[in-house]
């Protein structure tokens, strides 16, 4: 059996109504208890950020993140045991968005 740890799942999304319940539903479906939930503007224009802490295994955290990323209005999702790397994540989101901007042209 894999060990459970406290994971911080970070989700960057478009600013659309209803995303909170979409995201929360993903946790309920897998019977994951949400220990902490914070929603705030990410610092990137028009992009929201959810931070959700939950106690689970690495493979479950990965599966949830991949299924969250499937949602149309979710830009990127990450999971980490600690949240030290959130600035690196933000950089990754910026890169992704500018790549998409280039692909659009």
């Amino acid at each position, binding site marked *: 059996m894999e060990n459970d740890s406290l994971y911080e799942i970070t989700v960057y999304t478009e600013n659309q109504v209803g995303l909170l319940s*979409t995201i929360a539903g993903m946790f309920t*479906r897998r019977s994951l208890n949400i220990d902490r939930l914070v929603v705030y503007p990410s610092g990137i224009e028009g992009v929201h950020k959810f931070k959700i802490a939950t106690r689970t295994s690495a493979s479950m955290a990965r*599966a949830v993140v*991949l*299924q969250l990323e*499937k949602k*149309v209005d979710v830009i990127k999702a990450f999971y980490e045991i600690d949240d030290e790397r959130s600035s690196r994540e933000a950089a990754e989101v910026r890169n992704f968005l500018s790549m*998409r901007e280039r692909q659009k042209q």
Partner: protein
Amino acid sequence: MLTGAEILLESLSARGVDTLFGYPGGQIMPVYDKLYDYSDKLRHILVRHEQGAIHAAQGYARIKHAPGVAIVTSGPGATNVITGIADALIDSTPVVVIAGQVASTALGTDAFQETDFIGLTTPITKWSYQIRRPEDVAWAVARAFHIAGTGRPGPVVLDFTKDAQVGQALYEDVKCDFIRSYVPVPEVDDKLIAQAAEMIGKASRPFVVFGQGVLLSGAEKELAAFLDKGDIPAGSTLLGLSALSSDNPHYAGMLGMHGNLAPNTLTQHCDLLIAVGMRFDDRVTGTVATYAKQAKVIHIDIDASELGKIVPVELGIHGDAREVLSRITAAMKPSVRDSWMKKVVSECKAIEKDKVSDPEINPAEGPVRPGEVIARVAEVCGGDAVIVTDVGQNQMLAARYSRFCKSRSFISSGGLGTMGFGLPAAIGAKIADPSRKVCLFVGDGGLQMTIQELGTVMQDSVGVKIILLNNNWLGNVRQWQELFFGKRYSFTRMMNPDFAAVAAGYGITTVNVEKRDDLAPAIDRMFSDDAPFILNVHVKEEDNVFPMIPPGKSVDKVMLNNKDWFEYGE
């Protein structure tokens, strides 16, 4: 200026939509009122229950390879399509559901026929959106079709408030082929392609398992070319059927619980398992703990969350099946494989024919067996018909004994297993392509779940051929009760109506078949024209579908009948 209702209909036409399956009611009446003026552009099929509308849209979508559209009123109209939305999500079927909603000013007040339809459908849609202003209609429709039909397809809901339907706005068609947070077709790194080609080159017993992803990406030719060049055998999931023609020399048969012996055996004896556009459903894998443990796994799928979800993979390729297969084929060396796998396939086929198929499709005496009905229909149609099934024994047997020579010829509810899916899905399929024969195999239980759609068949003269495998039981459940619940037949016996009399009420011809000698002439009569027809065959009542991998068993431990088991190498 146009009303929101008119903008909806204009935007649908602009997307190439020509058929809507629907049912009117209070909160969608402004749209229906305008639809009256659009009958030259948009054909509306009036179903008899909204579940019929969504399943018909699904059947239509599977044939057209484009989103099907269902249109319903708020409240009960909307909740009646929920089963079909869940079905479309799990089976990756593109559908757009347009539901009426109370005026935006009344939202949240428990107004008459108000339900939180977005809230109800969020977990079972690919995307859902409430349109509250006429200005947003064109944008929402364009976005809905883009999302439903691209990447891994799925259902989308548009919840359309009444004030947005009657309010006015300027109409200009909106295109949508780009959403920055949504990447429908990911780019695939050359390194992964090279790695796959190398793994295939090194393997001595590679085996391909493919699913509906091949059909959805239009990769039928690429799959066949890949199998040819690599000399690799392949097995199909239920929903992958018809992606490869039944007589393709590399085709080993259907995978899973009621699949063929050969592909299930190869799964447990290959050294490289190459999964293409399939998701390792538990009906395919049996117990995952022992599934293909000896093999390395390459998994190709357009949905990244499928890679490694059930079966650990050595190489996951997140991409479109058609592109990935053609690039791997180009990168790999042609091979001629040792004959071991070919020997396994032919031995398995011989055993299955002898122990299961022959007794089922060529019985000398006794009641008519469902398998012989399906085999006979397959013979007459020459693999050319669209085969639609309901759920249960009829479904598994139709999958086993039908033959396919054209792609996109098998329509069934796989992931959700929705009884009642068959009749409306067959209606949708026939409307999508009237030039093809559409044969529905259905049980007496499933037919009665949506039997009201015979009214739709009547009103629109939909020439579906309904083959009722009538055993007076909920056969599939009865089989499980017989095998795993000590023959305790708890509420699975069905007292049935006189189906011919019911059909006569709808003006649909029915022929009842009780004796074997009457079967072939009745089938010939059924296909003598293109009119709706019910062939009500009284089949053996307590019959079982074999081979069967009992739940919790490994896929190479197979029941051949009530007493004999098969495991390769014994």
